């Protein structure tokens, strides 16, 4: 599991998660959006290389959402594989995030 984030000049923060996204990623995921030079306008969570996510990962996504302004947040979750997508769908997270 590895997480890294890149800030674009347009004010977007992209967080990439590689491997299993579970509780062990807790601190790293938090650092990815807390340790930024500037408050991002929008967030992109890139799950292209995410193989699995568990319920604590869903919790971490909610923490990000809260950090990014709750109902006013702008977060896209992209490139989910079918397993990951299924987990997001079961939890109906499309009501809270833009999932592409």
């Amino acid at each position: 599991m590895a997480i890294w984030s890149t800030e674009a000049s347009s004010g977007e923060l992209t967080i990439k998660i590689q491997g299993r996204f579970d509780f062990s990623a807790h601190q790293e995921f938090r650092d990815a959006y807390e340790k930024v030079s500037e408050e991002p306008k929008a967030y992109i969570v890139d799950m292209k290389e995410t193989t699995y996510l568990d319920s604590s990962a869903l919790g971490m996504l909610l923490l990000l959402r809260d950090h990014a302004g709750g109902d006013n947040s702008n977060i896209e979750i992209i490139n989910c594989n079918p397993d990951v997508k299924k987990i997001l769908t079961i939890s109906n997270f499309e009501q809270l995030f833009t999932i592409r």
Partner: protein
Amino acid sequence: MINGTSSIAPLEEPQEQLRILIADDNDSDRLILQTIVRKEGHTVYTARDGQEAIDIFRQESPDIVLLDALMPNVDGFEAARTIKQLAGDNLVPIIFLTSLRDATSLADCLAAGGLDFLSKPYNRIILQAKIKAFASMRRLHETVQRQRDEISLHNDRLIHEQEVAKQVFDNIAHPGCIDAPNIKYLLSPMAVFNGDLVLASRKPSGGMFVFLGDFTGHGLPAAIGAMPVSEIFYGMAQKGFSLQDVLREINKKLKRILPVGVFCCACMVDLSFRKRSAEIWVGGLPDVLVYRKNSREVECLPSRHLPLGVVDNDRFKTETTVIPLELGDRIFLWSDGIIEASNDQGEMFGEERVRQVIARTENQDQIFSAIEAAVEKHAGRGEQDDDYTMVEVSMVNEEDVGEYFAERGKSFLAGGPKDWSMTYELRPQTLREFNPLPLITHLLMEVPGLRPHSGKIYTILSELYSNALEHGVLGLKSDLKASADGFARYYMERTQKLSDLYEGAVKFLIDHHPVQDGGVLTIVVEDTGPGFDFQAKESAEHKTEGYSGRGIPLIRTMCRSVRYLPPGNKVEVVFDWHVDV
């Protein structure tokens, strides 16, 4: 020369005072050794043979033992073995003193439990260095041992705390009527600490609520949320609140108390034995499966909602799916532990395998255990600390699940309101947004002695109210409910028409007066609808086929009289009750 201690022990590390046992049958050797060791500041015990060494060891339990290999009576090898036995878990370094030179003999010293040997004649520098090395080895061993004991103590305390906490949780998050004959469930004994929760409660109307919850995380944080969920669930179920009311209340509470990121995936089923139907809400749990007894087909109800505790109530949705059920139809609920149980290749059990197991299990009563067995076989472990949670709820006749109230005996009749009447009219806005039954039931339960009859009274109230609202005010036709399709359409139309309701009313007139050891309760429910041809309907007797029409005949069996009043928009029920003496 003899005074060279400080050159070996660094100044900043003061020499540790040890208690050292020296066993040697040679008096001069013993004396030399004793002198050297004593000069180092250690306390010395001496023995002249193996037996004496063992005896002194038993009495004084010294820190290090210097043992001559060859001694009369009991030799050094045997003494070493006994001393090691006596020392048990403690590390007592044994150093053999020997003039033997051959490799075999030296190896024998170590085989007998010695950690090292020291050749005669003694070189005091080497002796001091060895004592020092073994003293620090002993300290290390002690530290490890102490830490081990602390961990074990800590663990014991943790287990004890968990046991106590579990008792508290069990008392609050008790599984209610989970042992009812129409329910099967699988829940690990320590489930509360892996965040899984199964609750079941009979409703005053005779129906049943079943709730399966799965909190994110493990341990205490996951367990804490179970308490308010359980309290709300049982408290509201008993008072006759609807599934929607209960879920909203739980969601509100969890959203308020849980930190962001902790939530409860859940599924709740409202089972009505009389209507032969189930109303189901799923938020964040794997698809609920409905198994049809006759066709052996499996329908699936996917999660349509966010888990509980994620959003505030203004965004929280309680749309449900209402499905008709035949006797013997089964509903399966599970936490993701079943679906995600992985084998050693990391491959999950998955929903497809669940369906395969269902399809190949001939005897329908064994589907539940077949799934359980298949999951355990797949995951390849038989431990108890797994987090497989699964519930099967089946449709049975109401008689088969037993009486709602087990309360018996003469109730406390003194005090309380016994002789009163009230009217309560509900206008459109209230009809749209409020369920009056819990309130009215609550009021009636204040009548001393009436509580054991709450199940029947709730049934009467809810049948009369839903008839008045659905047929009278909303104008829905119960014929719709004759087919499974129509059944679903009926409930869709009900929701639609209710949200568009701007005129009409339902009025309750309730009167209670006491008689010897009991009372007479009269309930009149009147609606603003046009009424219906009750005489024709009564003479035709209600049909009890299909999914409707069980209400009024059932009420007739419970009370003295049920009377429609012209033009058919008003019904009067008289309920006599007595205290069982």
